[in-house]
């Protein structure tokens, strides 16, 4: 479980996150949704410690993460996996070396065990016969899947995904969503996904937090999201004309 209490973050005096308090539950796919520039990525990067927060508390289970020193954060970070918007695979390493990297860095298992784990993770995300390819030789969807394989290689307790569907076609996006949900349940992880893709919201949104202009405006599940009274959430969800028509019909 990850618990955020009264989080504030600003850049050059401009408030980007304003008093965010939310709990992300274990074994669930938690979604942070909102328009581009609403503060989703800053929130996610603050949660994982890539941004120093101005005020507030970030709790990983019973540990106050944001007050830890760099070396003390390492233990919790070794339990994190993160899928970045642009995949962030290491250009100079092959697919296999990318997935093996966290194992080489943080585990003392034998080479055979590492190979086994790498192949298992790649198979789990449906990447076969591509071990020796470089990231530049992969498609967008394959890059995301390799990044997921790298993120789960150390059996993380926490999985963070920043816009996992950006730049992907709808079918590949659904596959990535399904994979994230399956892995969350399989490994009982606390997963937080940043997205503005409504398909993702309706497919995997077990817990949804809506952020607008740096403030938490709404919190609920995919079952509640269509019936919310939150004006800004409705503007976001029913932004396109088809959705607007459906809403009118429903009314």
């Amino acid at each position, binding site marked *: 479980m990850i618990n955020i209490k009264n989080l504030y973050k600003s850049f050059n005096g401009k408030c980007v996150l304003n008093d965010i308090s939310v709990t992300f539950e274990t074994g669930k796919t938690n979604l942070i949704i909102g328009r581009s520039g609403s503060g989703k990525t800053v929130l996610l*990067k603050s949660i*994982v*410690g*890539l941004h120093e927060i101005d005020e507030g508390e970030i709790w990983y289970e019973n540990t106050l993460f944001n007050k830890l020193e*760099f070396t003390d*954060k*390492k*233990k919790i*970070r*070794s339990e*994190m*996996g*993160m899928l*970045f*918007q*642009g995949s*962030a*695979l*290491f*250009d100079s390493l092959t697919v296999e070396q990318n997935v093996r*990297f*966290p194992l*080489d*860095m*943080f585990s003392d298992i034998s080479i055979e065990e590492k190979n086994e784990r790498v192949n298992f993770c790649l198979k789990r995300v449906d990447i076969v016969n591509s071990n020796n390819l470089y990231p530049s030789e992969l498609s967008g969807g394959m890059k995301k899947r390799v990044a997921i394989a790298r993120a789960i290689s150390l059996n993380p307790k926490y999985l*963070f995904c920043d816009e996992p569907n950006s730049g992907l076609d709808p079918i590949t996006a659904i596959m990535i969503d399904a994979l994230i949900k399956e892995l969350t349940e399989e490994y009982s992880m606390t997963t937080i996904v940043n997205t503005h893709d409504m398909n993702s919201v309706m497919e995997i949104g077990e817990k949804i937090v809506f952020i607008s202009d740096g403030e938490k405006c709404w919190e609920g599940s995919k079952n509640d999201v269509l019936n919310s009274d939150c004006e800004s959430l409705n503007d976001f969800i029913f932004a396109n004309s088809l959705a607007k028509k459906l809403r009118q019909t429903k009314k």
Partner: protein
Amino acid sequence: MIKFLTLFGQYFLMLKKVFSKPEKASIYYKQTLKEFVNLGLTSVGIITVISFFMGAVITLQTAYNTENPIYPKYLVGLGCRDSILLEFSSTIAALILAGKVGSSISSEIGTMRITEQIDALEIMGVNSASYLILPKLIATLFFNPILTLISIVIGIVGGWIAGSVTGVVPSEDFIYGIQYAFIPYYVVYALIKTVFFAFIITSVSAFEGYYVEGGSLEVGRASTKAVVYSSVLILLFNVILTQLLLS
């Protein structure tokens, strides 16, 4: 002034991170070997070519500008040797390496920054500054002196060939000249300067790349800044080190 002090502080904080204890020594060792190839071995070609031609030009320039019966011909060899030893192979070669190696380091790390690869390392709990910069520093600190020695030898050979082929300095005179009044300390002086310059090139370029913000345009700007700042610092430290080491 405040901006300069902030940058200065940020640079030393980065160095503190760079020299902190590595996560896993074996990984750093492999990474250092890779950097020996990427930053060292790949520079041998350019250093060889430039040193050869610079040695040749120094010899010809010295010969044509000291055409006087009272000057013995072997002074051309001596002049070529000392010019190469004292300035060319350490300072000028360092300026060339600032262009080649510095821009490569800065753009590599800068691209990793803007494509979130550095963030990915941090998330894993890896000290990204140390993992990315320390192997490069070790590689250049060890390999640049080797490049300097190669440059000295090739430069003198270039001078000897140019002098002999054009006939401006007879081969025996040139060889006598490069042995005449040889001060071994000059080699030490050149190597000490090289080590300082290697540190400047690598750390300044890495700093520019590591803290880049924005997109590809900023990475390009960071590369340019890395080369300019490294070159200026090399020239500044050249004066300081010359005064300290030769006074």
